[in-house]
C-alpha cells in the first residue's frame, strides 16, 4: 500500500500539471497541489489495494453457492476511517486557508489596472498612467491589482500561468492580484460562458522588465494625440481615434478588419461587407445590429447597446474610420 502510494506520488510529481508557473502565487498553488497529490495517492492506493486484494483473494469459482463470512462491522475500524479522513481534510482546509491569505495579500506599491470585459473583448485602463489598451502589459516582479468590471454579462479573467481567476460581474466591482515573476507573452482567457464568441474572447498579456514597460506606457501615452500603437504610420489623428474606438469597444473581438489588424470571424468580415454600404447604413448597423443582417449571421450575436455606449461624436469618428478603411479615402 505504502509502496503503491510512493509509486503513484513519484510518477505524478514528475509533471507540471498546471503548466508553466509565471507568478509567485503560482508557486504557492502548485505546492498545495503537490501536497494534495501525495495525500490523494495515499487514499487512492488504499482503495485500489483493498479492492484488488479482495478480487484476487475472494473471487468466487463458477457454481460456488456458499456465502461469505457474516461480519457485520468492526467499531475500531469504523472509527478509524471516520477520524483519519477528517484529520486529513481539516489539514487540507487549514493549509488552503493559509495559502489563500498569502496569495490574496495586497502589496502597498502594487500597480492598478482597471479591466473592462464585454462581449467579446477585454479593455485595460491604467488610471495612474492615463493609458488605455487592448493589451495587458505589466512589469515583472511587481504586484498588479486588476479591478474588474463587466458591461453586459458575466465574464471571467484568467491567466493560466498566474493561477488567478476572478469573475467580472455587471454592477459589482471585483478585483484580483497577481505578482508575475516570469517575463514573456501570455493570454487572458475568458472562462465564464458569455455568449457565441466566448471561446475566442482572449487578450494578449506581456510581462516585461520595468524599463520596457515604461517605454510602452510612454508609447501609449503619445497615441491619444497622433500616431498609433500598432503601426500604420501614415494615419491621421482622426483615424487613430477611430482605430482606438474600434479596439476599445471590442469590435476587433468579433470582426475582421485589415486596417485594424483584426481577424475574428464571429461577426461579418467588415472588409467584405462594408464597401457597398453608405455611411448612414453603417451607422445604423452599429446602433441597431438586428435591423439588417449579413448572410450567415443571426440576430442577437452583436450587442445592441452601442447606441448608448458611444456618444454621437464618437459614433461619427468610428463610422468615418470604417468608411475610410474599407472604401478608401474620399
Amino acid at each position: 500500500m505504502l509502496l503503491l502510494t510512493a509509486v503513484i506520488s513519484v510518477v505524478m510529481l514528475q509533471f507540471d500539471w498546471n503548466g508553466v508557473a509565471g507568478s509567485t502565487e503560482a508557486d504557492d498553488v502548485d505546492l498545495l497541489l503537490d501536497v494534495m497529490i501525495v495525500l490523494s495517492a495515499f487514499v487512492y492506493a488504499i482503495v485500489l489495494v483493498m479492492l484488488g486484494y479482495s478480487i484476487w483473494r475472494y473471487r468466487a469459482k463458477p457454481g460456488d453457492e456458499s456465502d461469505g463470512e457474516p461480519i457485520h462491522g468492526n467499531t475500531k475500524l469504523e472509527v478509524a476511517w471516520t477520524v483519519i479522513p477528517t484529520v486529513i481534510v481539516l489539514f487540507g482546509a487549514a493549509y488552503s486557508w493559509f495559502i489563500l491569505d498569502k496569495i490574496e495579500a495586497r502589496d502597498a506599491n502594487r500597480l492598478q489596472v482597471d479591466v473592462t470585459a464585454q462581449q467579446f473583448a477585454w479593455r485595460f485602463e491604467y488610471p495612474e498612467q492615463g493609458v488605455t489598451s487592448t493589451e495587458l502589459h505589466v512589469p515583472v516582479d511587481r504586484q498588479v491589482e486588476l479591478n474588474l468590471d463587466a458591461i453586459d454579462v458575466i465574464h471571467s479573467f484568467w491567466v493560466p500561468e498566474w493561477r488567478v481567476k476572478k469573475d467580472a460581474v455587471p454592477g459589482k466591482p471585483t478585483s484580483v492580484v497577481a505578482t508575475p515573476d516570469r517575463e514573456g507573452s501570455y493570454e487572458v482567457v475568458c472562462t465564464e460562458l458569455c455568449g457565441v464568441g466566448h471561446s475566442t474572447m482572449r487578450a494578449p498579456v506581456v510581462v516585461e522588465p520595468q524599463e520596457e514597460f515604461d517605454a510602452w506606457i510612454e508609447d501609449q501615452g503619445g497615441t491619444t494625440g497622433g500616431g498609433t500603437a500598432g503601426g500604420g504610420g501614415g494615419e491621421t489623428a482622426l483615424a487613430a481615434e477611430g482605430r482606438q474606438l474600434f479596439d476599445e469597444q471590442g469590435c476587433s473581438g468579433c470582426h475582421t478588419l485589415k486596417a485594424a489588424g483584426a481577424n475574428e470571424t464571429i461577426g461579418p468580415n467588415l472588409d467584405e461587407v462594408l464597401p457597398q454600404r453608405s455611411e448612414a447604413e453603417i451607422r445604423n448597423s452599429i446602433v441597431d445590429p438586428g435591423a439588417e443582417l449579413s448572410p450567415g449571421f443571426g440576430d442577437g450575436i452583436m450587442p445592441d447597446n452601442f447606441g448608448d455606449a458611444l456618444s454621437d461624436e464618437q459614433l461619427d469618428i468610428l463610422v468615418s474610420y470604417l468608411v475610410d478603411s474599407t472604401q478608401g479615402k474620399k
Partner: protein
Amino acid sequence: MAAALKQPGQPRAFLGALIGGAFGFALVVVLREISGLPTFQTEATGYPHVIVPAITAPLGYLVGLGIFDYWFRWAAGAPTRPEEHSQHGARSLGDYFKFNTDHKVIGIQYIVTSFIFFFIGGALAMVMRAELAQPGTQVVDPGVFNGLFSTHAALMIFIFVIPIFAGIANYVLPLMIGAPDMAFPRLNGLSFWLLPIGGLLFVTSFFVPGGAFDAGWTGYAPLSTGAPLGQSFFNLGVQFAGASSVATALNFLVTIVTMRAPGMNFWRLPLLVWANLSTSLLVVAATPFIAGVQFMVLFDRALGTNFFQAAGGGDVVSYQHIFWFYSHPAVYIMMLPGFGIISEVISTHARKPIFGYRLMALALIGIVVLSYTVWAHHMFVSGMFSWLRVPMMITTLLIAVPTGIKIFSWLGTLFGSVLHLYSTSMLFALGFIVTFVMGGISGVMLGMVPLDIHVSDTYFVVAHIHYVLFGGSVFTIFAGIYHWFPKMTGRMYDEKLGRLHFWLTFIGMSGAFLPMHWIGMEGMPRRVADYSAQFGDWNLLISCFAFLLGAAQLIFLYNMVVSWRWGPRATANPWRAKTIEWQVSSPPPIYNFDEIPRVVGGPYEYGVPGARHAIMAGEEAEVKAPEPATVGGGRS
C-alpha cells in the same frame, strides 16, 4: 374516433394539448389586442404567444390523458368510478402509453423514458466531440455548439439521472418494504407524465427562432435573461421536471414512513430505502429553489422585472446563490440513490452483510445535512462575499468524510466475501468504486479555494463532473438496471454482452474523461467550441474514446431490447438475494403480495445460519424463532 376522444388516453390527450395550446395562444392575442399592443411581440426575449401556449398545451395534454379525471369528479361531487386502480398492471404495450397508477408500470415508464432522453443527450455529446476533435470550427458553429452542451447537460441531469433513480426506486422500493403500492398512486402517475413534457420542451427548443437555450444548464443571469426564445423553454422545462421530482419525493417519504410491513423498523430497511429517504428529504426542500429562480429569470425575460438586471437595481450574483442552493444538493440527489443501489448489489453479489450497516445509514443522513451547507463552493471566483469562502470550503471538505465511510464500508464488505465477478451488476459496482473515488479526490481538490481559483470553469471541472456523474451515477444506474432486470421483465439478459458493455464503457469513459483533468489544469476553459492548437492532440484522443463510449451504449440497448423480448425466463430469485422483492415472482404479481410479509431481521444476513429477513405468506411453519429486534423506531 369520437369514442376514442371521449375515453382517457393518447387521442384525447393530443386533443387536450391542441385545445390548451389554442386557448393560450388566443388568450395572448386577445389580451394584446384589447390593450392596443402589437399582436405579436417577437423582439428580444418576449414571445408571449409562444410561452403561454407552452404552459397551457402540456396542461391540456395531462387533462386529456385522464390524470385529473378522478380528482375532478371527486371535487365536483360527481360519482367517482368505483373500481379505482382498475388501471393497475399493463397487459399490452399500449397500456404503457396510458395513465396508470401501478408503481411497477410507472417504474418501467420512468426508466424507458429516461433512457430515450439518455440516448438523445448522448447523441448531442457525440456531435460536440466531433466538433472538438480538432481546433477551429468544422462541424457546428459556436452558437449551435453552446446550445448542444446546454441541452446535453439539461437532458442528462433533469430527464435522465434524477428521474431514472425515481423510476428504479418506484419499481423496487414498495416491494422492498413490503407495501402493495406507493402511498399516493394517482400522484405517482402524474409525477411520471410531467417528465416527458420537460424533456420535450428542452428538445423542441432547437426548433424555435434563435435556436436551443445556450447559456449552459446553469443558465447564469444576465446571459440567460437576454438570451433568445429557447431559454424560456429551459425555464419552463425545469418547472415540469422539478414538479415531477417534488411530487415523487413526497410520495416516497410518505410511503417509507407509513407503509412499511410489520416488523420493518428503520434498522431493518435495506440501504436503498435509506438512500431514497435521504434523497427525498433533499428534493422536497431544495428543488423549489431552482423552480423559483427559473421563474425569476422568465419574469425578467417576459415581464420586464429586474431580479438580475444590474442596471435596474437587480443583483447578478444572487442568481448563483439561489441556483446552487438547489443545484449542489442536486448532485447528492443524483448520487445517494446510486449509493443505495451499490449497497444492494455488493451485498448480494459478494454474499455478505453490509459492513457497518448503521454507520452507512447515518452517513447518508450526514451527507443530507452537510449538502445544504456547501453550495457556495461553486462561486469561489464569482465575486460573492469573500469571507464566505473559507467556511464553505471546510464544510465541502468535511462532506468527503461520510462519503469516505461509505467507500470503506463497501470495501470492508468485500473482505472475506464470495465475490461473484461475472455478474455485470457487480462489475459496474466495483468499477464505480474505482471511478467515483477518483471523482471524489478531484472534488476535494476543487473544494480547496486556491486550487479552485485556478481550475474553476476549466476542463478539470468537466472531468470531475463526468467522473462523479458518469463514473458515479451512471455506473450505479447500469448496476441497478442489470441487477433488477430479471425482476422487472421476468427475463434474463445476456451476461456476456453485459460484460462487454462494462469493459468498453469503463475504457471509453477513462480515455475520454481522464485527460480532461490535465488539459484543464494547463489552461483549456470549458464550454468552448474552439481552443488553442496546443490542446489539439489530447482532444482528438478524447473524442476517439468518447465515440467508443457512445458505441458501447448501443450494445446495452441491443442487450436490453432483445433480452426483454426473447431472453430466457428468469426465476423469482436468480441472485439468491435476501430482500423482499426477490421473494415474489418475476415480475411480481399485481399488488405485489397476496398477504403482507412479516419482517423479522436485517436485510443482508448472508452467511448467518437460519437468519431470515422476511417471512412471506404461507411460510410460517418452516421458520425458527426470529432473532430479537435490535433498536426500535419502526412500527409494527
